[in-house]
């Protein structure tokens, strides 16, 4: 009996989560990086809360972008290295479904986890509790968009020996709008003004990449597989 797309998606996400939790060190590295980088700023700058608060959105977002990049390199690479990517490509479900499931699972263990620890970082940077919902929503949308941009980059660089630097060079310029609107939304939430405009932009970017990036990433991966 053949397997439907929903069941296959479910199985693939479980596979990715299972693999991630078998390697807790790799799972925790980007999160610890995020925590350490953001707590370095209060230590390195001054303890003036107003100064920290002014810089918090930028610090938070730059650290989030960089820590998300850390794990993107392995999105397809480990499967390509051990030959399981070929097995997945021939599983009869279509490469796009594989790419969507793997990227979604990647976001769950990197992006979503980062959103969950962001209040800790927010507290360290002096962001008021009232701004947390906007900060977390903007980070959620931003990291999901970034996972998709990263999937395109990871698809293109999967065949390269040291592709992680090239991956950063491909993804970071594309992530600039995320930084602008994400930090903008958080900044507005801190100052107590309406952050809806920036959030709408982030949501639009997220929908745009979620719709088109799967096809771009699949094509990139297919070219590399050949």
């Amino acid at each position, binding site marked *: 009996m053949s397997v439907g797309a929903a069941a296959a998606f479910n199985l693939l996400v479980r596979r990715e989560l299972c693999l991630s939790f078998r390697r807790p060190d790799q799972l925790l590295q980007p999160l610890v990086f995020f925590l350490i980088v953001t707590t370095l700023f209060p230590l390195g700058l001054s303890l003036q809360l107003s100064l920290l608060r002014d810089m918090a959105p930028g610090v938070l977002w730059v650290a989030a972008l960089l820590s998300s990049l850390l794990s993107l390199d392995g999105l397809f690479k480990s499967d390509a290295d051990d030959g399981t990517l070929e097995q997945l490509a*021939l599983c009869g479900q279509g490469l796009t479904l594989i790419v969507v499931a793997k990227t979604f699972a990647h976001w769950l263990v990197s992006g979503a986890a980062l959103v969950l620890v962001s209040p800790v970082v927010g507290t360290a940077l002096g962001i008021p509790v009232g701004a947390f919902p906007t900060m977390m929503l903007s980070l959620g949308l931003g990291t999901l968009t970034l996972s998709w941009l990263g999937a395109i980059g990871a698809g293109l660089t999967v065949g390269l020996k040291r592709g992680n630097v090239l991956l950063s060079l491909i993804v970071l310029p594309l992530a600039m709008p995320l930084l602008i609107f994400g930090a903008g939304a958080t900044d507005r939430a801190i100052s107590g003004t309406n952050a809806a405009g920036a959030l709408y932009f982030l949501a639009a970017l997220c929908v745009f990449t979620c719709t088109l990036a799967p096809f771009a990433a699949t094509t990139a991966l297919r070219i590399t597989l050949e």
Partner: protein
Amino acid sequence: MNTAADGLRVEKVHVWRGDRHVLKGVSLSLAPRQLLHIRGPNGSGKTTLLRVACGLLRPEQGEVSWNGQPISGVRLEYQAVLAYASHEPALKGDLTALENLRFAVGLKRRVSAQELRDSLEQTGAGACADLPARVLSAGQRRRVAMARVLAMSASLWLLDEPFTNLDAAGSELMSALLRSHVSQGGAALVVAHHDLTVAVEMRRLDLAA
């Protein structure tokens, strides 16, 4: 009775790798109940031909068809009937042998854990079912990879050097599995650099270096 349109046909396939012309107009056909052994020295394009045949690599010229239709048009249907075993065993080291099979075979068809254990038993890897693949020996990994092919219940097997790392008993078992697959109406395309001693009707295709 097989017709000409039945099964796999590779027609006048050309593949270049950079400046190297790896496959120079190779053709082959494979109908149900047939075993085709592809031989050739290192670098003659055996693996490339197998990757072309399973649709992982698109040839620059020529066509691959399944039951008379180009595989690019029936990609998913074609993938549903094929089982490919690459030169590497393609196992995740952090997953157990059984989990490896569950995630690979489960994408192709609904399969119970017992069925997967049975196929591991059949290839002599039953004792490895609950061990992480990274602790298995090369021969055991090969057996697990073969169990994956078995569990897929595919009619077309595309195997790249399936005898590598197997001991004498393993090679004998592999031959028996091929024999039973072909006699039950399956087809198999086997890349192996040495002679095969499978007691079924077997054709050979020699690739030049």
